[in-house]
Protein backbone atom coordinates (compact mmCIF):
# COMPACT_ATOMS: atom_id res chain seq x y z
CA UNK A 1 0.00 0.00 0.00
CA UNK A 2 3.08 2.21 0.01
CA UNK A 3 2.20 3.56 -3.46
CA UNK A 4 -0.69 5.50 -1.93
CA UNK A 5 1.66 7.41 0.30
CA UNK A 6 4.10 7.86 -2.61
CA UNK A 7 1.35 9.21 -4.84
CA UNK A 8 0.17 11.49 -2.08
CA UNK A 9 3.70 12.81 -1.54
CA UNK A 10 4.19 13.41 -5.26
CA UNK A 11 0.95 15.33 -5.47
CA UNK A 12 1.83 17.49 -2.48
CA UNK A 13 5.38 18.08 -3.72
CA UNK A 14 4.13 19.13 -7.12
CA UNK A 15 1.20 21.15 -5.70
CA UNK A 16 -1.23 19.11 -7.76
CA UNK A 17 -4.82 20.00 -6.98
CA UNK A 18 -6.29 17.60 -9.51
CA UNK A 19 -5.08 14.51 -11.32
CA UNK A 20 -7.21 12.49 -13.68
CA UNK A 21 -6.06 9.36 -15.45
CA UNK A 22 -8.26 7.34 -17.74
CA UNK A 23 -10.54 7.69 -20.69
CA UNK A 24 -11.36 11.22 -21.84
CA UNK A 25 -14.80 12.26 -23.03
CA UNK A 26 -16.78 15.49 -23.15
CA UNK A 27 -18.55 14.46 -19.92
CA UNK A 28 -15.23 13.94 -18.15
CA UNK A 29 -14.01 17.26 -19.55
CA UNK A 30 -17.01 19.04 -18.07
CA UNK A 31 -16.51 17.39 -14.68
CA UNK A 32 -12.81 18.23 -14.57
CA UNK A 33 -13.55 21.84 -15.55
CA UNK A 34 -16.25 22.13 -12.88
CA UNK A 35 -13.93 20.79 -10.18
CA UNK A 36 -11.11 23.13 -11.15
CA UNK A 37 -13.50 26.07 -11.29
CA UNK A 38 -14.88 25.31 -7.84
CA UNK A 39 -11.37 25.10 -6.50
CA UNK A 40 -10.43 28.49 -7.99
CA UNK A 41 -13.66 30.05 -6.71
CA UNK A 42 -13.03 28.66 -3.24
CA UNK A 43 -9.64 30.34 -2.97
CA UNK A 44 -11.01 33.57 -4.46
CA UNK A 45 -8.93 33.50 -7.64
CA UNK A 46 -9.31 36.63 -9.80
CA UNK A 47 -11.69 36.29 -12.73
CA UNK A 48 -8.95 37.15 -15.20
CA UNK A 49 -6.69 34.28 -14.10
CA UNK A 50 -9.67 31.95 -13.79
CA UNK A 51 -10.66 32.63 -17.38
CA UNK A 52 -7.14 31.97 -18.66
CA UNK A 53 -6.79 28.71 -16.73
CA UNK A 54 -10.25 27.62 -17.89
CA UNK A 55 -9.30 28.44 -21.46
CA UNK A 56 -6.07 26.46 -21.40
CA UNK A 57 -7.78 23.53 -19.66
CA UNK A 58 -10.54 23.34 -22.28
CA UNK A 59 -8.14 23.30 -25.23
CA UNK A 60 -5.89 20.79 -23.53
CA UNK A 61 -8.76 18.45 -22.57
CA UNK A 62 -10.52 18.70 -25.92
CA UNK A 63 -7.24 18.03 -27.69
CA UNK A 64 -7.01 14.73 -25.81
CA UNK A 65 -10.65 13.85 -26.56
CA UNK A 66 -10.22 14.65 -30.26
CA UNK A 67 -6.95 12.78 -30.43
CA UNK A 68 -8.52 9.70 -28.84
CA UNK A 69 -11.36 9.77 -31.39
CA UNK A 70 -9.01 10.32 -34.33
CA UNK A 71 -6.82 7.46 -33.17
CA UNK A 72 -9.77 5.10 -33.05
CA UNK A 73 -10.71 5.99 -36.60
CA UNK A 74 -7.31 6.17 -38.24
CA UNK A 75 -5.02 3.79 -36.52
CA UNK A 76 -5.09 0.13 -37.07
CA UNK A 77 -2.61 -0.63 -34.38
CA UNK A 78 -4.19 -0.65 -30.99
CA UNK A 79 -2.71 1.88 -28.64
CA UNK A 80 -0.74 0.25 -25.79
CA UNK A 81 -2.78 2.21 -23.33
CA UNK A 82 -5.55 4.35 -24.73
CA UNK A 83 -5.89 6.38 -21.61
CA UNK A 84 -4.37 9.76 -20.93
CA UNK A 85 -3.44 11.79 -17.89
CA UNK A 86 -4.41 15.37 -17.03
CA UNK A 87 -3.16 17.42 -14.08
CA UNK A 88 -3.49 20.86 -12.61
CA UNK A 89 -0.85 22.26 -10.33
CA UNK A 90 -1.47 25.34 -8.23
CA UNK A 91 1.55 27.15 -6.89
CA UNK A 92 1.82 30.51 -5.24
CA UNK A 93 2.73 32.31 -8.42
CA UNK A 94 1.35 30.08 -11.17
CA UNK A 95 -1.00 27.39 -12.41
CA UNK A 96 0.44 24.46 -14.32
CA UNK A 97 -1.84 22.59 -16.71
CA UNK A 98 -0.30 19.31 -17.85
CA UNK A 99 -1.44 16.48 -20.05
CA UNK A 100 0.07 13.26 -21.31
CA UNK A 101 -1.15 10.79 -23.88
CA UNK A 102 0.23 8.21 -26.29
CA UNK A 103 0.60 9.28 -29.93
CA UNK A 104 1.72 7.24 -32.93
CA UNK A 105 5.38 7.75 -33.76
CA UNK A 106 4.46 9.02 -37.22
CA UNK A 107 2.81 12.03 -35.60
CA UNK A 108 5.66 12.95 -33.33
CA UNK A 109 7.54 14.99 -35.89
CA UNK A 110 4.40 16.82 -37.04
CA UNK A 111 3.49 17.75 -33.48
CA UNK A 112 7.05 18.74 -32.67
CA UNK A 113 7.30 21.02 -35.72
CA UNK A 114 3.96 22.62 -34.94
CA UNK A 115 4.84 23.26 -31.30
CA UNK A 116 8.34 24.52 -32.09
CA UNK A 117 6.88 26.91 -34.63
CA UNK A 118 4.37 28.20 -32.08
CA UNK A 119 7.13 28.66 -29.51
CA UNK A 120 9.22 30.63 -32.01
CA UNK A 121 6.52 33.27 -32.34
CA UNK A 122 5.88 36.35 -30.22
CA UNK A 123 2.45 37.74 -29.28
CA UNK A 124 1.84 39.34 -32.69
CA UNK A 125 3.18 36.33 -34.54
CA UNK A 126 0.75 34.08 -32.69
CA UNK A 127 -2.12 36.44 -33.47
CA UNK A 128 -1.23 36.34 -37.17
CA UNK A 129 -0.96 32.55 -37.14
CA UNK A 130 -4.32 32.24 -35.38
CA UNK A 131 -5.99 34.42 -37.99
CA UNK A 132 -4.32 32.55 -40.83
CA UNK A 133 -5.55 29.17 -39.61
CA UNK A 134 -9.08 30.35 -38.94
CA UNK A 135 -9.24 32.17 -42.31
CA UNK A 136 -8.09 29.07 -44.12
CA UNK A 137 -10.99 27.20 -42.58
CA UNK A 138 -13.34 29.88 -43.82
CA UNK A 139 -12.08 29.77 -47.40
CA UNK A 140 -12.50 26.04 -47.48
CA UNK A 141 -16.12 26.06 -46.52
CA UNK A 142 -18.30 26.37 -43.48
CA UNK A 143 -18.28 24.11 -40.48
CA UNK A 144 -14.50 23.99 -40.53
CA UNK A 145 -14.68 21.25 -43.14
CA UNK A 146 -11.41 22.40 -44.63
CA UNK A 147 -9.60 21.82 -41.40
CA UNK A 148 -8.65 18.49 -39.91
CA UNK A 149 -11.55 16.21 -39.36
CA UNK A 150 -12.34 17.17 -35.81
CA UNK A 151 -11.56 20.85 -36.27
CA UNK A 152 -8.03 20.59 -34.95
CA UNK A 153 -5.40 22.18 -37.17
CA UNK A 154 -3.38 23.22 -34.15
CA UNK A 155 -5.61 26.18 -33.25
CA UNK A 156 -5.80 24.74 -29.75
CA UNK A 157 -2.04 24.90 -29.22
CA UNK A 158 -1.90 28.44 -30.62
CA UNK A 159 -4.67 29.49 -28.26
CA UNK A 160 -2.96 27.89 -25.26
CA UNK A 161 0.22 29.80 -26.06
CA UNK A 162 -1.69 33.03 -26.52
CA UNK A 163 -3.81 32.82 -23.40
CA UNK A 164 -0.95 31.73 -21.16
CA UNK A 165 1.45 34.24 -22.67
CA UNK A 166 4.22 31.68 -22.24
CA UNK A 167 6.02 29.01 -24.21
CA UNK A 168 4.50 25.55 -24.33
CA UNK A 169 6.67 22.87 -22.76
CA UNK A 170 6.55 19.48 -24.41
CA UNK A 171 8.30 16.14 -24.50
CA UNK A 172 8.04 12.83 -26.31
CA UNK A 173 9.01 9.68 -24.45
CA UNK A 174 9.34 6.55 -26.63
CA UNK A 175 6.95 3.75 -25.56
CA UNK A 176 7.63 1.12 -28.24
CA UNK A 177 8.04 0.78 -32.03
CA UNK A 178 4.66 2.36 -32.66
CA UNK A 179 4.00 4.84 -29.89
CA UNK A 180 5.46 7.71 -27.93
CA UNK A 181 4.13 9.39 -24.85
CA UNK A 182 3.39 13.06 -25.54
CA UNK A 183 3.60 15.36 -22.52
CA UNK A 184 2.48 18.95 -22.68
CA UNK A 185 2.77 21.61 -20.00
CA UNK A 186 1.31 25.11 -20.01
CA UNK A 187 2.04 27.65 -17.31
CA UNK A 188 -0.35 30.45 -16.40
CA UNK A 189 1.15 33.15 -14.23
CA UNK A 190 -0.88 34.31 -11.22
CA UNK A 191 1.08 37.52 -11.10
CA UNK A 192 -1.26 40.18 -12.50
CA UNK A 193 1.47 42.73 -13.05
CA UNK A 194 3.33 40.44 -15.38
CA UNK A 195 1.87 41.30 -18.75
CA UNK A 196 3.35 39.74 -21.80
Amino acid at each position, binding site marked *: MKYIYELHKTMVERSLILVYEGEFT*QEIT*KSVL*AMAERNMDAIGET*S*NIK*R*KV*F*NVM*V*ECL*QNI*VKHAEDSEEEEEIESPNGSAVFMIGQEEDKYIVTSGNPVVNAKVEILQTKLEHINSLDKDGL*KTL*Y*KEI*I*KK*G*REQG*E*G*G*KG*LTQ*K*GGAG*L*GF*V*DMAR*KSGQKLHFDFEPIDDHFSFFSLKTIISRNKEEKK
Partner: protein
Amino acid sequence: MEVINQDGTEDTPKIILDKNNGIFEISGRSLPEDSAEFYQPILDWLDQYGADPNPETVFIFKLEYFNTASSKLILDILSKLETIESTTINWYFHEDDEDMEEAGTEFSELVEVPFDFKTY
Protein backbone atom coordinates in the same frame (compact mmCIF):
# COMPACT_ATOMS: atom_id res chain seq x y z
CA MET B 1 -40.20 32.48 -39.55
CA GLU B 2 -39.43 29.84 -36.97
CA VAL B 3 -37.96 31.12 -33.70
CA ILE B 4 -34.87 29.50 -32.25
CA ASN B 5 -34.79 29.92 -28.51
CA GLN B 6 -32.57 27.57 -26.59
CA ASP B 7 -31.24 27.86 -23.09
CA GLY B 8 -27.55 27.77 -22.41
CA THR B 9 -25.88 24.83 -20.70
CA GLU B 10 -22.48 24.42 -19.09
CA ASP B 11 -20.95 23.84 -22.52
CA THR B 12 -23.34 25.43 -25.01
CA PRO B 13 -24.50 29.05 -25.34
CA LYS B 14 -27.99 30.49 -25.03
CA ILE B 15 -29.35 31.28 -28.47
CA ILE B 16 -32.25 33.46 -29.53
CA LEU B 17 -33.03 34.00 -33.19
CA ASP B 18 -36.35 35.77 -33.51
CA LYS B 19 -37.01 37.62 -36.75
CA ASN B 20 -40.40 39.13 -35.78
CA ASN B 21 -39.10 40.67 -32.59
CA GLY B 22 -35.73 41.50 -34.12
CA ILE B 23 -33.73 39.60 -31.50
CA PHE B 24 -30.57 37.84 -32.56
CA GLU B 25 -28.35 36.79 -29.71
CA ILE B 26 -25.71 34.24 -28.74
CA SER B 27 -24.55 34.39 -25.13
CA GLY B 28 -22.77 32.39 -22.48
CA ARG B 29 -20.29 29.58 -22.93
CA SER B 30 -19.48 27.71 -26.08
CA LEU B 31 -17.39 24.58 -25.89
CA PRO B 32 -19.65 21.90 -27.37
CA GLU B 33 -18.32 18.45 -28.10
CA ASP B 34 -19.00 18.92 -31.80
CA SER B 35 -19.17 22.61 -32.62
CA ALA B 36 -19.96 22.05 -36.32
CA GLU B 37 -22.98 19.96 -35.44
CA PHE B 38 -24.11 22.37 -32.73
CA TYR B 39 -23.98 25.46 -34.95
CA GLN B 40 -25.41 23.91 -38.13
CA PRO B 41 -29.06 24.77 -37.28
CA ILE B 42 -28.01 28.37 -36.64
CA LEU B 43 -26.24 28.59 -39.99
CA ASP B 44 -29.28 27.06 -41.71
CA TRP B 45 -31.57 29.53 -39.96
CA LEU B 46 -29.38 32.43 -41.12
CA ASP B 47 -29.49 31.17 -44.71
CA GLN B 48 -33.26 31.28 -44.56
CA TYR B 49 -33.28 34.66 -42.82
CA GLY B 50 -30.83 36.06 -45.36
CA ALA B 51 -33.30 35.38 -48.16
CA ASP B 52 -35.79 37.82 -46.59
CA PRO B 53 -34.11 39.80 -43.79
CA ASN B 54 -35.44 42.63 -41.65
CA PRO B 55 -34.49 46.16 -42.83
CA GLU B 56 -31.97 46.20 -39.99
CA THR B 57 -30.24 43.38 -38.13
CA VAL B 58 -28.41 43.84 -34.85
CA PHE B 59 -26.72 40.61 -33.89
CA ILE B 60 -25.55 40.30 -30.30
CA PHE B 61 -22.59 38.21 -29.20
CA LYS B 62 -22.31 38.19 -25.42
CA LEU B 63 -19.96 35.33 -24.83
CA GLU B 64 -18.30 34.57 -21.57
CA TYR B 65 -16.09 31.93 -23.13
CA PHE B 66 -15.69 30.07 -26.40
CA ASN B 67 -13.20 27.41 -27.43
CA THR B 68 -11.15 27.40 -30.63
CA ALA B 69 -13.48 24.94 -32.35
CA SER B 70 -16.37 27.36 -31.74
CA SER B 71 -14.34 30.28 -33.03
CA LYS B 72 -14.41 28.79 -36.53
CA LEU B 73 -18.18 28.50 -36.39
CA ILE B 74 -18.53 32.05 -35.06
CA LEU B 75 -16.58 33.15 -38.11
CA ASP B 76 -19.01 31.16 -40.29
CA ILE B 77 -21.93 32.97 -38.65
CA LEU B 78 -20.25 36.32 -39.22
CA SER B 79 -19.63 35.39 -42.85
CA LYS B 80 -23.35 34.78 -43.30
CA LEU B 81 -24.17 38.08 -41.61
CA GLU B 82 -21.69 39.80 -43.91
CA THR B 83 -24.00 39.10 -46.84
CA ILE B 84 -27.08 40.51 -45.09
CA GLU B 85 -27.51 44.23 -45.63
CA SER B 86 -27.63 46.72 -42.72
CA THR B 87 -26.24 44.26 -40.22
CA THR B 88 -24.37 45.38 -37.12
CA ILE B 89 -22.61 43.19 -34.60
CA ASN B 90 -22.83 44.13 -30.94
CA TRP B 91 -19.86 42.44 -29.36
CA TYR B 92 -20.12 42.38 -25.59
CA PHE B 93 -17.25 41.59 -23.28
CA HIS B 94 -16.84 41.72 -19.52
CA GLU B 95 -15.04 44.97 -18.68
CA ASP B 96 -11.93 43.20 -17.40
CA ASP B 97 -11.88 40.56 -20.13
CA GLU B 98 -9.24 41.78 -22.54
CA ASP B 99 -9.06 38.44 -24.31
CA MET B 100 -12.74 38.58 -25.27
CA GLU B 101 -12.34 42.17 -26.43
CA GLU B 102 -9.35 41.16 -28.54
CA ALA B 103 -11.23 38.18 -29.95
CA GLY B 104 -13.97 40.56 -31.11
CA THR B 105 -11.43 42.88 -32.68
CA GLU B 106 -9.88 39.98 -34.57
CA PHE B 107 -13.23 38.84 -35.89
CA SER B 108 -14.02 42.38 -36.96
CA GLU B 109 -10.80 42.36 -38.99
CA LEU B 110 -11.81 39.16 -40.77
CA VAL B 111 -15.26 40.19 -41.98
CA GLU B 112 -16.81 43.27 -43.55
CA VAL B 113 -19.46 43.92 -40.93
CA PRO B 114 -19.50 46.89 -38.55
CA PHE B 115 -18.82 45.94 -34.91
CA ASP B 116 -19.96 47.91 -31.87
CA PHE B 117 -18.02 46.99 -28.77
CA LYS B 118 -19.84 47.09 -25.47
CA THR B 119 -18.92 46.11 -21.94
CA TYR B 120 -21.12 44.45 -19.35
